[in-house]
Every structure is written in C-alpha cells, then in structure tokens.
C-alpha cells in the first residue's frame, strides 16, 4: 500500500517501527558472519565482540516492542497497518533469537580454540552460516519490498540448510566414534551446527510473517522439515 495516511504522523510512526527491523536485521546479519568467521579463524577477539554486540540487538528488540505497543495504543491500526505492527513484533523476536544463537556460537568458539581442531568442519559450518545469512538478507529484502513471492522462495530454501545440518550431524558422529578425544570438540561443533539450523527456522518464520502482512493470510502449506536427526539411531 503506497497511499499515505491522512494523518501523516501515522506514516512516520509506522516507518519508524519498520526502520527498527532493518537496523536489527543489519546487526544480526553481521553477528552471523562474525560468529562463523571467528570460528573458522579461531579468532577469540572477534568472538568476544559478537558476544558484546548481542546486547545492542536485545535493546533494539525491546525498543521495537515498546514502539509497537505505542502505535497500537495511540493509533489503533487496522488492516495492513495492523498486520505491519504485528509482524514487526514477531520478526523482532525472531531476529533477537537469531542474535542469541550467534552469541552462543561465539561462546563455544572461545572454548573450541583451546581444543584440538577437527579437520574440515569449520569450513562446512561457515558455508552453512553463509547460506543462512544470505537467506536472512533476502528475507529482509522481501520484508522491505513487501514481496510475498520472494518470501515463499526463501522459506523453501531452509530445506538446504537442514540437509547441511544432517550431513554435519553424521560427520560429527563419525569423528566421535573414531576417537573419543574428539567428543568435547564435536559436541560443541554439533551445538553450533544446530544453532545455525535453528537460525534457518527463524528466518523461515520471518518469511511467514512477510507473507502474512502482505497477503493477510499465513501460508497454509506445511514447510518442508529437513532435520531428521531426531529419528536417527546412533551407529546404525
């Protein structure tokens, strides 16, 4: 909807809450990239920076919630406007969670640098993180341009992330069975992979919010669920 409101301050309020999402999104993208980079380069300082920066994301989420509550109380938004503020509230919660996962990756990185490196896995994790980060970037683009079709495409891409997670899960199992001394590192790496996989789920949820606010309806088809490890039998 490109028409302006009769009360122009209403437009400014709505733009302000939406700007918060864009700002948060930028910080969260950076957090994913930096967390993956710190893991691959075993860069403790960068990891520490990711942990510190998470506070800014949390603060923005709080601000978004307050602004949304204010708009609802003062403007009583309806139709698209209502859907916009509701989606801002949910998307900011999703972004905040993604930020937490990035922070958790950074924490585990600080531990991992003190352990024997497991060959090849950090590059795979970086690829996976890169994929999620691209999905998030596209999801935010879909949000800014109110593009429900793009959002639907991204939603389907989460399947790839799940596949990558499944492959890594098996790899970690193999490493741990080969040499029990790998267990500590592999447990941490596995949690990192799981964190990235969960980030993908949150990006998917953001896409669903975009679809809802653009079309007025939540997507009906079930999202393809690719993480089958919950049913895996070890050593099978």
């Amino acid at each position, binding site marked *: *909807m490109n*028409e*302006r*409101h*009769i*009360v122009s301050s*209403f437009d400014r309020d709505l733009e302000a809450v939406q700007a918060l999402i864009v700002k948060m999104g930028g910080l969260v993208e950076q957090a994913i990239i930096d967390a993956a980079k710190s893991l691959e380069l075993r860069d403790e300082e960068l990891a520490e920076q990711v942990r510190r920066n998470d506070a800014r994301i949390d603060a923005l989420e709080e601000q978004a919630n307050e602004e949304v509550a204010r708009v609802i109380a003062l403007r*009583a*938004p*309806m*139709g*698209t*406007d*209502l*859907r916009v503020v509701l989606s801002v509230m949910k998307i900011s919660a999703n972004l905040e969670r993604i930020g937490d996962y990035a922070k958790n990756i950074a924490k585990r990185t600080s531990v991992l640098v003190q352990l024997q490196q497991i060959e090849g896995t950090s590059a795979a994790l970086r690829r996976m993180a890169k994929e999620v980060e691209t999905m998030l970037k596209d999801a935010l683009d879909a949000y800014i341009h109110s593009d429900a079709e793009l959002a639907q495409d991204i939603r389907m891409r989460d399947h790839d992330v799940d596949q990558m997670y499944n492959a890594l899960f098996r790899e970690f199992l193999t490493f741990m069975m080969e040499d029990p001394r790998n267990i500590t590192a592999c447990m941490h790496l596995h949690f990192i992979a799981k964190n990235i996989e969960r980030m993908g789920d949150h990006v998917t949820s953001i896409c669903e919010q975009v679809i809802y606010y653009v079309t*007025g*309806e*939540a997507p*009906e088809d079930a999202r393809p669920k690719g993480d089958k490890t919950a049913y895996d039998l070890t050593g099978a």
Partner: protein
Amino acid sequence: MNDMRLLERDVDTNDIKIAARDVQVYYGDTHAIKDVNVDIADNTVTAFIGPSGCGKTTFLRCMNRMNDTIDIARVEGVIKIDDEDIYDKNVDPVQLRAKVGMVFQKPNPFPKSIYDNVAYGPKIHGLAKNKAELDDIVENALRRGAIWDEVKDRLQEPGTGLSGGQQQRLCIARAVATEPEVLLMDEPCSALDPIATAQIEELIDELRQNYSVVIVTHSMQQAARVSQKTAFFHLGNLVEYGSTGDIFTNPQDPRTESYITGRIG
C-alpha cells in the same frame, strides 16, 4: 487460517432478518444508493461504516421507510423483513416503525416525563390493557435500556432533565418498549462521553439476544467493538460486507483497506 475469534463474537444464527435486493435511492437527481444487495442476519449486530455522504444513513433509513418523509426521495428495489416487502402498498409505515425501532444520533426525548417517554409507544399501539400492564412494560423497557436503577425514583420527572448518556439510554428504552424486532441506530454514541458510550455498547450487545441491530457509526473502533458483521459503503455503493474480524484485519477491497487504515476520508 484458523478462526481465532472469540466464541462470543460468533454469529449465532444464519436466519436472515432483512434482505435488500437492487436497492436504489434517489434524492431528486442525485443517485444516493446504487444497487445495494445485502442480507442482514437476525440476532446480530451489523455495523455500517463509510465516509460522510456515502449513503449509510440513507440506506439505514430505507429499512423503516423514514425516507418516505422526504418528498424528493425515491426508493427502488426490494427490501424484505421476514420475507415481507416493506414497501408493499398494504404495509402501514407506522406499524412498520413499531416493528423496526430507531435510535438517532442526538438523544431526542419527548418533552414529557421519563415514564411517558417510554409509555407513549405502547399506548398508541395498544400494547397494554391497563395501568398495571403499562407499568410493567415501562419498567421492563427501562431495565433493558440499562437505566432503570438510575431513574426508578424519578419517573415523573422530565426526560429532558437527564444527562446526555441517560437521555440516549432512555431513547433506547423507548425504542424497545414497542417490542420491535429490528433496532436501527444512527450514530447512537456520537454525542456521548466514553463511559456512556461503553454503557450503550454493553447494551447493544445485550439487545442482540432479542433483536437484529443495525448501527451506523463513524467510529471504526466502535464498529469493531460491537458488531459481528460490517458493511462498508462508499459513494453510494456497498463495497464490502463480511465478518467484522475479516473487514478490520484483512479487507478484500482496496477501498475498504484505504478507509479503515485512514487513507481516504
């Protein structure tokens, strides 16, 4: 998507109380209502919303033939209440208006006592055989108007001496005293403060048990609060008609969307 509306918001019935087909209204050369088709359910609050001059009040006034009193107004099409054409020449407009009550924007009590305000309708329609019966009808109507407790000790005082909110509830009591089946309300709260508005809205919800209520309102918040169905009028057309929850969260017509979000006036 699953219907998340609260249960009490559900429309309890699919019985159609008022059916309008191809209704046109002209004021002289002005075509005020264009091809309106609508089914209004029984035991339901239906809100008419739309910008000033969109025809919502004109259409409301068609339903008890109030437009008959305007010389240059001409109504075409069919409006049926309980399957009976209200514009049939055998229908007495006075009897019709006893069945289809109306409450106006400005409270307009008669310059009579509170008691007589309510007793007037039942008296002229011969609904009471004696004084005791009339007393019962008056008490009952005032109770349904949610004003009994405030006026029971001063029934002989003039109705015009009440506060604005009380006067409006007195007018609602007067409207329900003749046992109407449909209650038309033309911006019943626009002259009232928020407390009186809340009392009237509570009352409207209770009245829904027994009547089909149609309310014209400029307050979209009010339409959203009190109604189960909402109709949006624009430039004499009925643009969209649907459940209130859908109209206010996900309207299908861009004109409805623009109006409810405050983009056209």
